[in-house]
């Protein structure tokens, strides 16, 4: 299937200012997307409040707005430029949230702008913890176990289900006062008791802790014909408990047997299908118990992320560029890999 001919202009939302924990990954993805779409002849309109990025260089887009990435500002840009489509998957969570706001406020409907790359539903399903949990249950994947506790009886029951260590969080307290991690029965009952007292609603949430588990990420790309490829697997050298952003990561994963890896591969593709990422790249995160291989899903990002920049660098596969092309109608088998001189497709 060739590229879509019913669209002429595309609005790309950037990630805004670089904040702590971010590097230049969204500048990289945004710049790649601008280039990839312009070479296909689309009119590219860019909004990003960060003038220090490469993507806001004058020659990157046809029209560049250095304005706040906020729905009210972007709405005025839409009013002026009247783009056919909006590509929100290149500017991190900031851009996704902005797109959701624009939709909620009726701006997209009013000016007949179509979101490409990830649907509104997909963004919503991936972001909302409860919707995500339901979606994962539907495809047979487990998440960290979680229970709500109000009293001693419920605490005992929850302890049987969750096991140790358990993360105990009182609801609606500032800074989680009264919570903690329990490693044994005594601690569990004590922290639950404190938590129930500290919570204005007398309620604590008890979560299974994956502390010390092995942490993995899968970078998946899917096209509208449902072709799915894994760009790479990533393993964190530091276990769960150390934030991925602080951890040394290695691609590909190093300590999985083929049978375990294939479970993870199949699971990550299922996640994209269920969440509804029809075109583009996503990042799916897993934790694996090093003692028995138990696998839980942590989260997924229906967009290019820090990890996709890393994966692009490690593998040579330009995820953002390919994701942009898939968003405008191409399929994976139609795109040639620039790195291997076009020899290797998909």
């Amino acid at each position, binding site marked *: 299937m060739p590229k879509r001919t019913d669209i002429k202009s595309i609005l790309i939302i950037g990630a805004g200012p670089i904040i702590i924990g971010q590097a230049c990954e969204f500048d990289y993805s945004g710049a790649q997307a601008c280039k990839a779409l312009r070479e296909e002849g689309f009119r590219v309109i860019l909004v990003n409040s960060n003038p220090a990025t490469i993507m806001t260089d004058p020659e990157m887009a046809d029209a560049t707005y250095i304005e706040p990435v906020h729905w009210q500002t972007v709405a005025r840009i839409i009013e002026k430029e009247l783009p056919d489509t909006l590509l929100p998957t290149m500017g991190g969570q900031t851009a996704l949230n902005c797109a959701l706001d624009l939709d909620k406020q009726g701006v997209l409907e009013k000016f007949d702008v179509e979101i490409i790359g990830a649907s509104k539903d997909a963004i919503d399903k991936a972001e909302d913890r409860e919707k995500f949990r339901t979606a994962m249950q539907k495809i047979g994947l487990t998440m960290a176990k979680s229970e709500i506790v109000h009293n001693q009886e419920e605490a005992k029951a929850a302890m049987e289900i969750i096991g140790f260590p358990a993360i105990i969080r009182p609801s609606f307290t500032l800074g989680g006062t009264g919570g903690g991690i329990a490693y044994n029965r005594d601690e569990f009952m004590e922290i639950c008791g404190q938590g129930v007292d500290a919570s204005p609603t007398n309620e604590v949430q008890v979560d299974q802790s994956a502390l010390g588990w092995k942490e993995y990420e899968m970078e998946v790309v899917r096209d509208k*014909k*449902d*072709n799915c*490829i*894994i760009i790479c697997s990533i393993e964190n050298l530091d276990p769960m408990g150390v934030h991925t952003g602080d951890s040394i990561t290695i691609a*590909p994963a*190093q*300590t*999985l*047997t*083929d*049978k*375990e*890896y*294939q*479970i993870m*591969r*199949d699971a990550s593709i299922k996640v994209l299908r269920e969440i509804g990422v029809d075109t583009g790249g996503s990042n799916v995160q897993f934790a694996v118990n*090093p*003692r*028995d*291989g*138990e*696998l839980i899903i942590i989260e997924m990002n229906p967009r290019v992320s820090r990890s996709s920049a890393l994966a692009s660098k490690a593998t040579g596969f330009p995820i953002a560029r390919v994701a942009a092309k898939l968003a405008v109608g191409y*399929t*994976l*088998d139609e795109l040639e890999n620039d790195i291997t001189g076009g*020899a*290797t*497709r*998909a």
Partner: protein
Amino acid sequence: MIDNALLALEDGSLFYGTSIGVDDESIGEVVFNTSITGYQEILTDPSYYKQIVTLTHPHIGNVGTNLEDEESSQVFVSGLIIRDLPMVMSNWRATENLRDYLIRHNIVAIAEIDTRQLTRHLRKHGAMKACIVAGDNIDADKSIKTAESFAGLIGMDLAKKVSTTSRYNWVDGIWDLEDGIQASHSKKEWRVIAYDFGVKRNILRILADLGCEITVVSAQTPASEVLAEKPDGIFLSNGPGDPDPCDYAITAIKKIINSGLPVFGICLGYQLLSLALGAKTSKMKFGHHGANHPVQSLDDGQVLITSQNHGFAVDEKTLPNDLIATHRSLFDGSLQGVHHVKYPVFGFQGHPEASPGPNDSKRLFNHFIELMQEHKT
């Protein structure tokens, strides 16, 4: 690191490294495999008989070895060449480290080889005859001569050498994270006879889970014997070597096809099937060996990421009119699957059973079941 092992190629190239197996000498055809996971499955795949395998993934041995990841009862490769063997293994399933495993199975293996250089060499010049030797007093010139003495895989019938000698029934299902490998619980609805040309266990496990009661027979079993049992379908397994000289199998397959029974062939089985229907096969330059080969299904355009392991290929130009191409490699455009227009007969060049590799093409097994269903009614 001590250089106490050598890989000598027929063209005179020498690669020195460190022995991680037994002190011995072994010859075969050296091929590269690009799979990142599944080295134990590769070592025990009978299709690698008479081949020395070099793995392009640099760290091999990370996850140790275990009894459930074996694809047959023994290690079939003639030798293993890797870049780096980690000092510790790290996986809950591991029961023995790779070095001990190789030594216990009497395999010559070398680490500390520049596998990238070796692979580029093989890509440029093609798969080569080689000699791999470990121990004291290595004589490079002698090793090159030994490498040259290997007869090569063209014209070599290896299927009958790796095949089972006696027939047996298969009961196990596929591996599960919680239960490991157990007898398959599926309701057995189909009687399948599997020709063993070097069969991988995961094929039998998948068939068992899909409801097949499987009897595995040796490569040289005549068609009359198999047909007399009135099975619902015949499976032709993967295997090593050149398909062309396996005349006994080709004769048997012709008879089986004419009987009208559903037939499914994988890898060597697919090549034998194609030969039986009149197509031709030829040796490839360096073959396909890996777990990430994109193959396109020609009827719906879907791309399947497949596991591959073959050094011979069916030439699409030689297909008879009633045998249609169903799959093609997106790497080099080579033929990857065929289906007969009249008979319920089809074959696939890649490995839908994965192990190692992705499960994308597993649905081909379901097609086999569908054909048996249609045939029965």
